[in-house]
């Protein structure tokens, strides 16, 4: 048996499907409920064995716990079982429940396995209840076996098609969903709506990941060939919004050039309008026209140009309140499809996802320069083989392995869980990266000073005080996109004041970007990236600021 062969789980109240599969589809592995190795068809215990597959939803849960890597589920439709073994339901008609038990099991599986491919072993002719067809219509990961249910060769081809399609489906791997109910609903809605031509409205507090959702999930899931483009309407002066979105023609106003707007540049792709609640009234009218007609007119021109754009709008504002206050057009709000708006829960409502998110953000931060370089420098100085990656441990001894593990104390972990996270995932991202960089810098200093033992170098302790200080500090970590919080005190001259403010902005963005001058320049300046990075580094030095190596040198 090929250990890498796809793993199938059969869910059927009888043994007809499993017999056919074990007899005619031996190129696959099967998720059983027993611990014995080897395929069932070579097993001495096979006659009369009931562990070959799942007979109801509880056994399906059991099999999936034993085999979390199941590739495809083959699920029967009708289950002739006692009521106690059916998925709990308010449907009073027991026969109907039995006939549609496969649909109920599918819904049950979706609570924990949102994108697990399921082949429903039935055909349209057997789906006699409308609600069954409706439930299946919105599930993109389910396939009807139709007449192939008992045709092993056809079923095998169907499974291969399902597996191939899965590899082409938008990979939401970069986006961390976690396990809370709100995020599960969001994931399902986002992928389904992305396939339609309907506008999408993302609503959530600053830092919850609206932009990442649009770029990493919605755009790939829409399968559009064009690019993903976003524009932060809060960061644009009101006078420039229309020109930026719809483009300009030479002479439209003083200094105007022939230039395509974001709509035209996103043609065939996805355009994210961040902070759509900040759109000036004039631009709201133009956006409404563009959405209704599928055309945009550059400023200074009279001929509209057709555009095909999947529009995603995001906001942390209360748009219905803005409509009531007369600052946001009611017709535009209606056009943004508010009935299907997607609510992204704040981090404080999904603290069960904290550990997963932290591990993901840490791994991402150390997968690229400059942090990857710092990690390599540390492992080299400590005499360790190159690290496989980085990991986090929370209040207990870390596992042995190739990773460099950042060890958080129980007190730090409690403090992180109790924190309100006003800056949401962005705040968490900054905090995790800052904590890890400072801890690693300290560890590197200790190694270089000969104060660290090689045997323990794989584990980098994170001081509780550092976590506590960062959680308590107002600053860049708590600020939203494009915003920093600075301490403002009177200065003797305006020049001294602006220098003080500039120093704080540079220090905050320096910390925020982990000391990467290119990243700082990208946030602060328009134009040539390399030249800007040099300018920022020069200014940093001119202001008498120095690169800190760790919390001990702050």
């Amino acid at each position: 048996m090929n250990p890498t062969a796809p793993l199938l789980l059969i869910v059927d109240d009888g043994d007809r499907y499993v017999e056919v599969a074990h007899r005619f589809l031996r190129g696959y592995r099967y998720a059983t409920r027993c611990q014995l190795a080897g395929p069932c068809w070579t097993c001495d215990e096979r006659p009369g064995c009931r562990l070959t597959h799942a007979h109801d939803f509880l056994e399906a849960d059991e099999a999936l716990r034993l085999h979390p890597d199941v590739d495809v589920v083959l699920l029967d439709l009708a289950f002739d079982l006692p009521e106690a073994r059916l998925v709990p339901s308010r449907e009073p008609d027991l026969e109907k429940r039995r006939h549609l038990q496969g649909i109920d099991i599918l819904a049950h599986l979706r609570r924990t396995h949102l994108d697990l491919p399921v082949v429903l072993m039935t055909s349209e002719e057997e789906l006699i209840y409308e609600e069954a067809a409706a439930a299946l219509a919105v599930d993109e990961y389910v396939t009807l076996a139709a007449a192939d249910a008992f045709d092993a060769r056809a079923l095998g081809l169907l499974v291969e098609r399902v597996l191939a399609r899965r590899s082409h489906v938008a990979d939401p791997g970069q986006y961390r969903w976690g396990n809370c109910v709100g995020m599960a609903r969001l994931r399902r809605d986002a992928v389904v709506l992305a396939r339609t031509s309907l506008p999408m409205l993302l609503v959530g507090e600053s830092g919850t990941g609206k932009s990442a959702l649009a770029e990493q999930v919605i755009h790939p899931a829409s399968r559009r060939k064009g690019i993903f483009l976003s524009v932060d309407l809060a960061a644009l002066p009101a006078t420039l919004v229309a020109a930026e979105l719809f483009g300009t023609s030479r002479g439209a106003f003083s200094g105007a050039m022939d230039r395509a707007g974001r709509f035209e540049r996103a043609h065939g792709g996805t355009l994210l309008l961040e902070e759509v609640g900040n759109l000036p009234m004039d631009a709201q009218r133009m956006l409404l026209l563009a959405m209704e007609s599928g055309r945009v007119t550059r400023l200074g021109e009279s001929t509209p140009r057709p555009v095909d754009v999947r529009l995603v709008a995001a906001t942390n504002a209360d748009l219905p309140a803005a409509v009531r206050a007369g600052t946001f057009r009611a017709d535009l709000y209606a056009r943004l499809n508010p009935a299907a708006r997607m609510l992204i829960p704040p981090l404080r409502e999904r603290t069960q996802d904290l550990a997963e998110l932290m591990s993901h953000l840490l791994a991402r931060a150390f997968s690229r320069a400059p942090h990857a370089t710092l990690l390599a420098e540390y492992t080299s100085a400590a005499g360790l083989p190159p690290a496989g990656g980085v990991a986090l441990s929370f209040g207990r001894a870390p596992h042995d392995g190739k990773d460099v593990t950042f060890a958080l104390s129980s007190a730090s972990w409690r403090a992180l869980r109790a924190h309100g996270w006003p800056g949401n995932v962005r705040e968490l991202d900054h905090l995790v990266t800052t904590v890890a960089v400072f801890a690693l810098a300290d560890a590197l200093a200790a190694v270089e000073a000969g104060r660290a033992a090689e045997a323990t170098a794989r584990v980098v302790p994170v001081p509780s005080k550092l976590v506590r200080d960062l959680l308590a500090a107002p600053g860049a970590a708590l600020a939203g996109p494009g915003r920093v919080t600075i301490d403002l005190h009177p200065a003797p001259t305006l020049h001294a004041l602006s220098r003080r403010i500039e120093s704080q902005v540079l220090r905050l963005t320096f910390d925020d970007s982990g000391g990467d001058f290119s990243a700082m320049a990208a946030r602060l300046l328009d134009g040539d990236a390399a030249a800007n990075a040099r300018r920022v580094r020069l200014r940093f030095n001119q202001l008498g600021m120095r690169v800190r190596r760790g919390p001990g040198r702050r």
Partner: protein
Amino acid sequence: MTDGTRSRRGDEAGRFAALLLHDVGKYIARTARNVQGQEWTPELSAMLCRDLFEMAGGRASRVFEERAKPIEMLIGAQPDLEQVRDLLSQIDSLESAVRQGEPDALGRAGQLAREVEAALRAFARTLQEGTP
């Protein structure tokens, strides 16, 4: 009979036809579909016997009669069901030879089982598209 009543009965019959397809049509050809042109080993013969004569609820012909009865009560006798009845009768007549593993009987029974499935699938589709 009013159009409304006729329509309701048609819907009901469609539901029963779907059950008939699920309970008989799908299972009866389970093994037969997969051994076309191959040798009938004892293991495969035993599987075929289960499909034809040991369904949940009894032999296929008996399960068929139970599921077909409400359809015929709702919309009268149906030529398609008569055809299936005849096919199942032929299968029953082969039982002894099939159980003894006679290759010709196994091949013929398998062929008849596939015809039953195709007929029931077509019947269910016809009823769902409109009362015949």
